[in-house]
């Protein structure tokens, strides 16, 4: 039976008709286009490329950016809802959309010249071009300020050197938004596929996000024309992008939790042991009640976060709370779902292990769980724990 969603607190009543229609449309898309192909992609460790054009056609890339650039012109509630539904399918597919929208299209729109916007946004929106975002380096993850990738001024542009790691869509990308130091400050550069000295080898043998491409980006004297430099200085550039993406992750994680919860409820009602469904046992009921409670809390956090984002009052620390909480509970819910499913939980017939494995990555990407804890700690006390 098609996925019905989880809405114990009638949160639907808080959504407008068009927001609900966006949800239903993306939900149908996930059911018809993603679910039939995702297990094979995950087991075969490839990204289902057919989805790129289809997602572009649907309109999930750059949903909140203006329609004049071929984007959606929708609110953040719609964006969040779409990410929730995509991740109900798979975290890797949602990651693709997050990167394309929040980490590539957002900075191009926010910090790019009119020429750059017109060159890239319509193609990225349609899925005719793919983007990636290079911030993390092999030796600089939680502390991006220590990055070694650097740019030097040359005639007509910059010379880029360095390496990035853990880059979603890296090997697929037509354009990479790369953050590098120039004269001691972080700047953003658009590196295009085929530029001399730029390569993006794929990182293989992952046990998580297997239906997603993760790559290294290597820059050896890559010449970047002046026109490809973004108009922003300092870490606030990449961090502003991460705030957008983390917002989508907060929604996506709850989508994943809804998938593993739904499977758990169905399984608990149909799996008979000792002459009755295992859902009739108190230990299983406690697990289901806990899952539903955490999902409902996460949904309310997301709804409120969307309202604040649409009102332009949302602060990054509030996104940290949502990302930290929702991904952690989604992972815990997936693990408990595995328990409920018993041995069946490890089979590809059920979405459990795929979601659980994916969420292991989601928990530590885009700001690890621990770093978001420290962001909140700093917010509460006014004292930064991670600054030397």
């Amino acid at each position, binding site marked *: 039976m098609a996925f019905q969603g989880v809405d114990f607190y009638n949160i639907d009543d808080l959504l407008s008709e*068009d927001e609900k229609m*966006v949800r239903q449309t993306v939900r*149908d898309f996930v059911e018809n286009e993603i679910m039939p192909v995702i297990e094979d992609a995950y087991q075969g460790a490839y990204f289902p490329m057919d989805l790129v054009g289809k997602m572009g056609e*649907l309109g999930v890339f750059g*949903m909140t950016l203006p329609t004049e650039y071929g984007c*959606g*012109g*929708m609110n953040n509630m719609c964006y969040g809802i779409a990410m929730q539904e995509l991740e109900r399918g798979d975290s890797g597919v949602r990651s693709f959309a997050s990167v394309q929208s929040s980490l590539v299209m957002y900075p191009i729109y926010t910090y790019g010249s009119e020429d750059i916007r017109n060159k890239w946004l319509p193609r990225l929106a349609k899925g005719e071009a793919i983007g990636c975002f290079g911030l993390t380096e092999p030796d600089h993850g939680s502390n991006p300020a220590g990055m070694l990738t650097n740019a030097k001024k040359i005639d007509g542009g910059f010379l880029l050197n360095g390496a990035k790691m853990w880059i979603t869509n890296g090997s697929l990308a037509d354009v990479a938004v790369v953050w590098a130091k120039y004269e001691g400050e972080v700047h953003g550069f658009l590196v295009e596929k085929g530029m001399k000295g730029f390569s993006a080898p794929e990182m293989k043998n992952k046990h998580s996000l297997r239906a997603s491409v993760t790559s290294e980006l290597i820059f050896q004297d890559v010449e970047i024309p002046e026109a490809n430099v973004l108009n922003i200085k300092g870490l606030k550039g990449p961090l502003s992008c991460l705030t957008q993406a983390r917002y989508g992750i907060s929604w996506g994680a709850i989508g994943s939790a809804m998938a593993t919860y739904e499977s758990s409820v169905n399984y608990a009602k149909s799996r008979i042991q000792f002459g009755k469904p295992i859902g009739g046992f108190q230990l299983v009921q406690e697990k289901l009640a806990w899952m539903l409670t955490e999902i409902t809390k996460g949904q309310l956090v997301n709804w409120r976060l969307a309202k604040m984002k649409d009102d332009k009052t949302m602060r990054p620390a509030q996104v940290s709370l949502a990302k930290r909480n929702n991904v952690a509970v989604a992972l815990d819910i997936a693990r408990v779902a595995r328990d409920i499913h018993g041995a069946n939980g490890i089979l590809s017939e059920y979405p459990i292990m795929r979601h659980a494995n994916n969420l292991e990555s989601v928990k530590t990407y885009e700001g690890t769980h621990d770093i978001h804890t420290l962001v909140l700690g700093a917010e509460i006390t006014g004292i930064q724990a991670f600054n030397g």
Partner: protein
Amino acid sequence: MNILVCISQVPDTTAKIVINSAGNAVDPAGIKFILNPYDEYAIEEGLRLREKFTGTVTAVTVGGDSAKEILRTALAMGVDKAVIIKNAEKSDSFSVAKNIADYATTLNPDVILLGRQSIDYDSFQMSGTLGELMNMASVSMVSKLEITGTDVAMERDIEGGKESVQTSLPCVIGVQKGINEPRYPKLPDIMKAKSKPIEEFSPSSQETRVQTITMDIPASKRVGKILGDTDADIAEFVRLLHEDAKAF
């Protein structure tokens, strides 16, 4: 080409149906309503005809205010015009067909498309009654449609096979699943649909010819289970025979 698509709002297939206190109708409280799935094929076919021949696609429904939701879906899918004939009164198939026919007469469509049936009451009345009232040929269960000039060639599903038929425009066509793959509304179009107008008309007729006396929920049966054909499904089938059905 002037294309009219008749659509209907029906309870979601997963909705839990409750009969009202009078015992003669479905209690709409708490039910999620959706666009009748067969009508989605009709909308898609209308859009494809417009893409091929240019023209206008008008979606019409008869119902209360809540039925505007399915018109928004039709607009998001790409129809040009949405019309609601507001009728909160309880009506029968004839009444719906009569109201649509009276509206359609003013529109003078080349073709009227609709789903082969509404999945709520399953009366299978609409295309036939509409054809009669409009004095047009009416063909239902159509799974393939080819229009050349005013010639209309169709394939329709019949028990155990297919039947090829032909007629000419204007005509009424009840479409069957499989005629096409309905498009997803594009998300930005959902937003645009919000600002498009929905024309409202009062019912031209309240005449009904069939009265529902009582309605009952069927006695619940043991739920069946459908498995696939992989090795894992076979293993699950054997396990169910052993553990669930206790057949051995």
